[in-house]
């Protein structure tokens, strides 16, 4: 989230699209209720189902899953055509005026440079014209035919309300009503917030779904302001934290990136990352990359990381592909190329698409280790449960270790919520049985491996032998020790730049925040964006001052938000080019002639003059990007693409399937179904009574929602002679499940591209362990393809068939 949960109360319009906050994030959604009750805010829900969020909305519009870009591009076009643009914001704070290279274009659903064989674009024309001064050329009058604004208008031209209806199945008048309500928020004194979740990410063009809304928010002037923003409602309690800390194949901590094989040494690596400003006087904050990277390497390898050895750069593995993401790893596993796998608090047998492939993959491992407080289907993937897990146990040769871990109540530490607040929690109870902290388990495996390398030697032991592990009890690093390491400290005395005789931070002391990090090896910090979380003031994540001056919803004294305790990202954009708040009643920051003052930590140098320095300091441009240059694989503008399994053809290019640059492995391409064979559009979702596959272990939640079901419309039920409460079989090209049918008015058939499209809704909370009845998940059916930029599986749109059936059979147990 760019803003905080508590900030939602400041909004005038909430758009919930690609999510269902009332059910999946109920206590956060209360801030929508607050805005409605006390500000008169309106709520729009656009969703294939009439959800509980929709039930309290002011306006609901149905949409076919996977067609969000067409809808959002349609809204953008409506706003531009009707002059509903916050012109001063858009002109000053976006790249609308930047001139794009000749050659860039879009035709038949494809951008310039498409190579069908490689399934990739040559993106060289997707860039700005660079002037002789080294800066991007702009035309602030927006008259140049090749400026971003004019290219955007051209790109959006086909997205008429008629096209939106044809593609999305949203009746034209409903689309227009939504567009009209959204367009009102182009006023500087009206703000809209976007609340989305996996309904937008789990698509082969998920990143572009989000981009489309972000662009709309920029055109309306809603980024960086109170009650605005792009608010990703993250799934798990610390999914934000694990992303921030770089527990991903392609990342290091704080959005530093893993080196690739092109990065032959440290200087080569740095040369493509210290982005220089593309406009005069801009911040381009990544110019500080080297400070964060060197401090990170020092946190990892201490004295072994020196200037002479490029800060131990060769200790880091180098990628030969964009990422060894989960889809690639299971593809490799299924091909017999992976021997071992560790699943820490993760249940891939229910979480990853094409369950049959996941089971087959895990069966090819030599060993698998699970670490979880609860039983998981994954740890017992080899166990036969009749229809619920129909495996040949004896033929599965995988050695499995099931390690019991503590749960939240039994540990200290911090979790980062969706609004980037790092909140500390304290241990309240003793672990059951022999359950251990994950950090203890990880330490034990590490120390035992290190000992083996010390004794026996082996393949490149240096990064293991030299990893800093200087905890008081090396067997179990404490949360405090780890948090302090994340924050970072001075390794030698840091002198005051304004007075070289004065020690600013003495050796061994915590740095105050990342502004004190150095690129000469004199500081260390595990994760620069978290720096400030535990400095010499103490544990800022444990702060509990819940005062909120003038009730802005900022709560600056409550825990710690990254970066620098800032609560709203891009908050300098809450004020105009002269530093005056767009909406004085919703002031966030204001330029007082010498510095930025207000309710939040400025997201810009506190003394940066408003006319000189743009608000989007992480970007080389200093402004936001309506045109993404070559930074996204599937286009600088969002373009309509169908899901890989779609009930209709792509109206821009009827031969094109899915996202033209998304990676598809050959065996998975062969397992994609067609609408002739699988006529119904399926989607997956959560219920409010359950959290993933955990709460089926809880008796209360299992009693509330005991049994797996699918939701279908009355029309489809009549057509297929399916009874409400009766058993159905639902199957795709990849698998088959049995479920109780819920026949409901909440789902209605849509007319898309001239034909009726029926939707099958599949909740995701059942398996074969726990207190609830045994059942299945949508992942048995979903396709094994991912987003073109980040490889998030397309679990929200796939094709199925359905028929009346009988109950599934459990394994017969002879007593």
């Amino acid at each position, binding site marked *: 989230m760019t803003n905080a949960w508590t900030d939602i109360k400041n909004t005038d319009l909430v758009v919930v699209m690609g999510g269902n906050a009332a059910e999946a994030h109920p*206590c956060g959604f209360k801030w929508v209720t607050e805005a409605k009750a006390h500000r008169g805010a309106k709520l729009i829900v656009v969703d294939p189902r009439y959800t509980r969020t929709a039930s309290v909305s002011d306006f609901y519009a149905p949409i076919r899953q996977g067609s969000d870009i067409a809808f959002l591009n349609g809204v953008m076009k409506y706003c531009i055509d009707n002059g509903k643009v916050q012109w001063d914001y858009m002109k000053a704070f976006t790249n609308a005026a930047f001139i794009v290279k000749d050659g860039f274009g879009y035709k038949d659903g494809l951008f310039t440079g498409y190579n069908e064989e490689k399934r990739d674009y040559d993106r060289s024309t997707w860039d700005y014209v660079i002037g002789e001064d080294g800066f991007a050329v702009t035309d602030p009058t927006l008259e140049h035919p090749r400026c971003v604004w004019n290219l955007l208008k051209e790109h959006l031209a086909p997205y008429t309300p008629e096209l939106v209806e044809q593609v999305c199945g949203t009746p034209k008048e409903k689309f227009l009503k939504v567009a009209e309500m959204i367009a009102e928020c182009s006023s500087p004194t009206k703000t809209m917030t976007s609340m989305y979740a996996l309904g937008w990410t789990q698509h082969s063009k998920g990143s572009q779904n989000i981009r489309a809304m972000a662009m709309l928010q920029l055109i309306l002037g809603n980024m960086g302001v109170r009650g605005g923003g792009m608010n990703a409602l993250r799934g798990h309690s610390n999914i934000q934290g*694990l992303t*921030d800390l770089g527990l991903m194949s392609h990342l290091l901590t704080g959005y530093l990136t893993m080196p690739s094989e092109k990065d032959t040494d440290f200087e080569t690596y740095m040369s493509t990352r210290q982005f220089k400003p593309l406009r005069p006087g801009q911040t381009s904050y990544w110019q500080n990359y080297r400070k964060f990277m060197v401090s990170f390497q020092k946190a990892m390898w201490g004295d072994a990381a020196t200037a002479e050895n490029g800060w131990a750069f060769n200790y880091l*593995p180098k990628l030969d592909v964009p990422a060894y993401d989960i889809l690639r790893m299971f593809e490799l596993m299924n091909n017999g190329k992976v021997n071992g796998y560790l699943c820490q608090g993760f249940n891939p047998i229910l979480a990853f698409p094409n369950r049959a492939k996941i089971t087959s993959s895990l069966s090819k491992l030599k060993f698998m280790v699970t670490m979880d407080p609860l039983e998981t289907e994954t740890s017992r993937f080899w166990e036969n449960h009749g229809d619920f897990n129909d495996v040949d146990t004896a033929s599965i*040769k995988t050695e499995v270790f099931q390690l019991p871990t503590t749960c939240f109540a039994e540990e200290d*530490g911090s979790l980062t919520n969706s609004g980037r607040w790092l909140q500390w929690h304290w241990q309240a109870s003793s672990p059951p049985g022999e359950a251990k902290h994950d950090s203890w388990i990880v330490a034990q495996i590490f120390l035992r491996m290190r000992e083996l390398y010390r004794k026996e030697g082996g393949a490149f032991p240096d990064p293991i032998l030299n990893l800093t592990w200087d905890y008081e009890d090396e067997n179990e690093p404490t949360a405090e020790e780890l948090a302090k390491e994340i924050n970072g400290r001075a390794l030698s005395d840091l002198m005051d730049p304004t007075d070289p005789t004065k020690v600013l931070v003495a050796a061994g002391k915590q740095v105050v925040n990342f502004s004190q990090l150095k690129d000469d090896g004199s500081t260390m910090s595990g994760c620069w964006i978290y720096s400030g979380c535990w400095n010499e003031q103490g544990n800022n994540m444990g702060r509990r001052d819940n005062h909120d001056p003038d009730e802005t919803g900022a709560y600056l004294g409550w825990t710690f938000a990254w970066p620098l305790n800032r609560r709203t990202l891009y908050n300098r954009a809450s004020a105009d080019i002269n530093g005056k708040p767009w909406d004085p009643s919703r002031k966030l920051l204001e330029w007082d002639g010498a510095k930025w003052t207000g309710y939040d930590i400025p997201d810009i140098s506190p003394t940066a003059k408003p006319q000189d320095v743009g608000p989007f300091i992480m970007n080389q441009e200093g402004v936001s990007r309506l045109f993404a240059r070559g930074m996204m694989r599937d286009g600088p503008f969002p373009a309509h693409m169908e899901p890989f399994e779609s009930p209709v053809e792509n109206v821009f290019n009827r031969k094109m399937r899915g996202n033209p640059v998304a990676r598809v492995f050959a065996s998975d391409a062969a397992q994609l179904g067609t609408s002739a064979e699988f006529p119904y559009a399926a989607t997956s979702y959560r219920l409010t*009574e359950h959290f993933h596959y955990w709460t089926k272990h809880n008796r209360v939640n299992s009693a509330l929602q005991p049994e797996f079901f699918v939701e279908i419309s009355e029309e489809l039920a009549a057509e297929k002679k399916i009874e409400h409460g009766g058993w159905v079989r639902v199957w795709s090209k990849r698998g088959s499940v049995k479920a109780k049918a819920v026949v409901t008015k909440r789902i209605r058939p849509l007319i898309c591209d001239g034909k009726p499209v029926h939707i099958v809704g599949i909740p995701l909370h059942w398996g074969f362990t726990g207190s609830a009845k045994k059942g299945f998940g949508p992942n048995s059916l979903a396709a094994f393809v991912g987003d073109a930029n980040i490889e998030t599986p397309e679990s929200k749109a796939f094709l199925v068939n359905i028929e009346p059936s009988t109950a599934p059979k459990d394994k017969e147990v002879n007593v």
Partner: protein
Amino acid sequence: MNMDLSRRSFMKLAGAGVAATSIGALGFGEAEAAEIAHVRPFKLATTTETRQTCPYCSVACGIIIYSKGDVRKGDKAEVVHIEGDVDHPTNRGTLCPKGAALKDFVKSPTRLLYPMHRKPGSDKFERMSWDEALDRIARLMKDDRDANLLLKNEKGLDVNRWTTTGMLAASATSNETAWATFKFAKSIGMVGFDNQARV
């Protein structure tokens, strides 16, 4: 945040005391004393209160866990009740159907208690000691790493890439656990390392 005597429990204890003494002072005699004696004291009055956050979704509601025993004092502590934290700015004491049933997660009958091991081809888990399990895992991992770590690519560049063992990290663990896990996974050269953010 553990407090020897929190504001809340102080109020509860004080309240109980005031009621008892004032009734006594009014002189109702032994019948009333007997009545008071069998009234159960408020069961949370003697518990340890701990500030926590809900582990489910990313709203991260504040909760208060009430335990019998105090882990800070070395006691074996057991959760007896969980409720919303009224001081928390986001949830202001409220919880959803998942958060309200959190105690059931902590005390689920399917909580794992011991390291278990499944031999290749076996149809059951068998108990294993921590030492045995961890030694065996470290051995399996080292042997696989030694056999398959790719030190150099075809151009002779150091790549130090280990693709044959991977890991999924848990996005419900704390940042601190995540950092320890990160250090472990990246230092051994593991590249097939992801978390739920991708899914």
